[in-house]
């Protein structure tokens, strides 16, 4: 990765994110957020996170350290523990702990 590329991403993402944060606080702070926009935005995390995560789980890994079946098993385990315990940390720790186990089972 060239340094110019990395710094472009870092500074670009930093700038765009700062503008998003500054929007109502500084740029148009007399404007109330429209309810319709609020509804749309409330679905951003719940859509973006699975959109990013799903292909990482379901598609074959280029390093192939983890077969797809093992990844799906570890991901499902994380999801089930998360829903069962309603704990973000519990889910993450369970998933991380399960990964070497499924790797070993798949090997």
């Amino acid at each position, binding site marked *: 990765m060239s340094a110019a590329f990395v710094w472009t991403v870092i500074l670009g993402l930093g700038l765009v*994110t700062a503008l998003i944060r500054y929007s109502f606080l500084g740029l148009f702070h007399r404007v109330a957020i429209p309810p319709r926009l609020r509804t749309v935005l409330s679905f951003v995390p719940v*859509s973006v996170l699975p959109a990013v995560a799903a*292909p990482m789980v379901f*598609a074959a890994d280029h390093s192939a350290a983890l077969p797809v079946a093992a990844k799906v098993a570890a991901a499902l385990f994380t999801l089930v523990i998360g829903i069962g315990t*309603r704990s973000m940390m519990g889910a*993450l720790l369970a998933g991380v702990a399960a*990964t070497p186990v499924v790797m070993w089972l798949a090997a």
Partner: protein
Amino acid sequence: MQTDPASPDTGQPRRAFLRGFLVTLPLQIATVPFGLVFGALAVELGLTAWQAIAMSVIVIGGVSQLVALPMMAEGAPALLVILTAAIVNLRMLMYSAALAARWEGVGRGPRLLAAWFLNDQSFAVSQHRYVERPEMTPAERAEFFLGSGCCCLIFWTAATVAGALAGSRIPEGWPISFAVPLVFIAISVPFLRGAPNLAAAATAAALSTALHGLPYGLGVIPAALAGIAVGTVLSGAKR
């Protein structure tokens, strides 16, 4: 609007800053693992430790940073990486609007600082405090938020440093990049309530997997937009 009509009792805002810092402290147990994952993965995927740390300090958006990393490693165009990762941060529009409503008369300084380090935790903690203590002045509210933000900034940066230093020592063959989807699944869990949210998540996951053949993770944006659309339509139908 720009001058600070902060209460004459100037001792109060300082105390609010410290309070904000302390109240946010226990939550750092959640920040640290994500920072470690980001730092380690960034180094593994080819960023230098300094670049990883700079990214954490400049962006302060863990999820967007973790979204950007694999795309960068794949050599996606910078603009596409920025756009995809920025979509993740669009939720902060809501936070910005909610804070603005409580910060009437607060000067430009705190607003600019918020543009730098407004994050999920500080927003949630502050909003909770504002509701609990309606007697707080806008200046105190801003100070409370800034204290909370400083706490997150310090721990997020420190965890990134630790992760970046550890990352170069992680043995070859350890699938640490697989921690990224696990992190995202763990973060999604609290949102997975009710039909509109579940449908949004399922749509986005299915479409994104179907579009996985596209280069550079190009499928993520349409998949996320489809999920947002499905959730919005369903929530409208329910009302």
